[in-house]
């Protein structure tokens, strides 16, 4: 094989408009998920991310039926699921993990029933596993709008969110409205879930909301660096994952998340300060318990 044909093989995906679109949208979704993943990681909200991303399902279906933007439907159900979780937790003796588990599966199941009984062209597979290669222009516009909203809000409240994650008591004692910050962060999560749904689907979006933050967390003790590293790994996996999926003709969402997980595993082993090789026999918090 000569150099020219290698080159042709490498650039082949870029000859198609759908591939260029897919790579651009994946990169954008990778970016906003990575930014949010830092806060999810630090707030201990990985499970909450999983819950909200599943709970938006009925919202997506209803929005489809009513022919309104999917983001609105998913926003309503995403925030609704969080309110339901908060209500059940405060009014009953059931612990939070059980409440989260039962609420999001309930919402998700409701979504399944809706899809199965709705005479529409919604493809369940696309919702579950994403369909970035076939993304419509309207969905691209929606993703861009969501990205702009998310990045603007986080740009403004970056430090407030950080304080809210780190020390909500202090946040309250200097007069910050922690209730507002709580729901704002969850609203961003709901919006991001619907953006991620286009690319990797409901099932895998939680990976995009956790893995980049977790990877970056092992690499640095500085929040700004953590954010940049998370973005780097999130965007890189989205772009390269989409590209690889073309060549192996495999699931795009799957490729993206497998790549993210590989980066995490490599980081977990080789991270200079918190990697397994660096920590060696040093006891972690876990073993001290």
């Amino acid at each position: 094989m000569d150099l020219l044909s290698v080159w042709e093989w490498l650039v082949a995906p870029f000859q198609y408009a759908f591939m260029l679109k897919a790579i651009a949208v994946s990169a954008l979704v990778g970016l906003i998920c990575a930014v949010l993943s830092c806060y999810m990681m630090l707030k201990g909200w990985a499970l909450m991310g999983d819950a909200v991303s599943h709970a938006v399902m009925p919202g997506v279906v209803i929005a489809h039926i009513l022919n309104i933007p999917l983001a609105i439907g998913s926003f309503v159900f995403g925030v609704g699921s969080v309110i339901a979780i908060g209500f059940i937790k405060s009014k009953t003796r059931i612990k939070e993990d059980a409440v989260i588990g039962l609420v999001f599966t309930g919402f998700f199941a409701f979504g399944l029933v809706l899809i199965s009984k709705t005479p529409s062209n919604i493809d369940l597979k696309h919702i579950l596993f994403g369909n970035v290669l076939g993304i419509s222009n309207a969905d691209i516009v929606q993703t861009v709008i969501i990205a702009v909203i998310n990045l603007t809000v986080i740009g403004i409240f970056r430090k407030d969110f950080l304080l809210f994650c780190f020390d909500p008591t202090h946040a309250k004692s200097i007069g910050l409205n922690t209730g507002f910050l709580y729901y704002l962060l969850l609203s961003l999560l709901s919006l991001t879930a619907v953006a991620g749904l286009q690319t990797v689907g409901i099932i895998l979006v939680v990976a995009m909301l956790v893995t980049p933050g977790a990877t970056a967390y092992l690499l640095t003790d500085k929040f700004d660096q953590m954010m940049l590293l998370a973005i780097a790994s999130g965007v890189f996996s989205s772009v390269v994952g989409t590209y690889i999926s073309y060549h192996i003709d495999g699931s795009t969402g799957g490729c993206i998340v497998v790549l993210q997980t590989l980066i995490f595993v490599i980081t977990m082993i080789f991270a200079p300060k918190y990697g397994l090789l660096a920590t060696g026999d040093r006891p972690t918090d876990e073993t001290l318990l």
Partner: protein
Amino acid sequence: MNKIRIDIENLTIAYNGKVALHGANLQLESGSICGLVGMNGAGKSTLFKAIMGFVKPVTGRVLIDQMPVRIIQKKSLVAYVPQAEEVDWNFPVNVWDVVMMGRYGYMNVLRIPSQRDRYAVKESISQVQLTDLGDRQIGELSGGQKKRTFLARALAQQATVLLLDEPFAGVDVTTEKLMIQLLIELRELGHTILISSHDLSSISTFCDRVVMINRTILAYGNTNEVFTPENLALTFGGSASVLASSLAKQKLGQ
């Protein structure tokens, strides 16, 4: 006579119908360090949380400088250092970042520090003698250094009211001395400090006022008048005879 800074009127707090603090009345003046003394479960932490407005009172109210606490908080005028900081010590922030969080109330919505904010943070870190550790991740500090970091945050906040819940628990002697010295300096600036401590022997050395509680205010006043074996017996019940005798010994020692 200094002006009344914290005004607690007929305050009753209950958790799930169980009364934790009943009919508390207390007026703390400016330029004063008040020691809060009571057994475990006597309602010390509850009193702090009630002053901060974190628990809703069944009856009564708390005013700071004749205003609701909510408004005082928005002006960053009250700083609260809880008993055990319930923070994640692995969090990617260093000493400087944490102390800077005390300045958020003075910044605009983007929380971009001004020259003044940086100066206040630098000053506060130097006051608690952590200047060399400014860029250290908080999990890598000793117990005393952690406490000092959070005290520095309260200092950077430049609040006129400081609420310190067991600040000396688990800290080294040097840190305790340093903290007491700083509190005395703040009192001279006219600040009002309410501080709870298990260490009864140190209370009398730097607190000009003492309040004794056991689900309600049992006694309040000047330390030399209120900090008596009789009142301690009242506050601590049966276990107080030991305390009283140790206190008496200490007084004889002086």
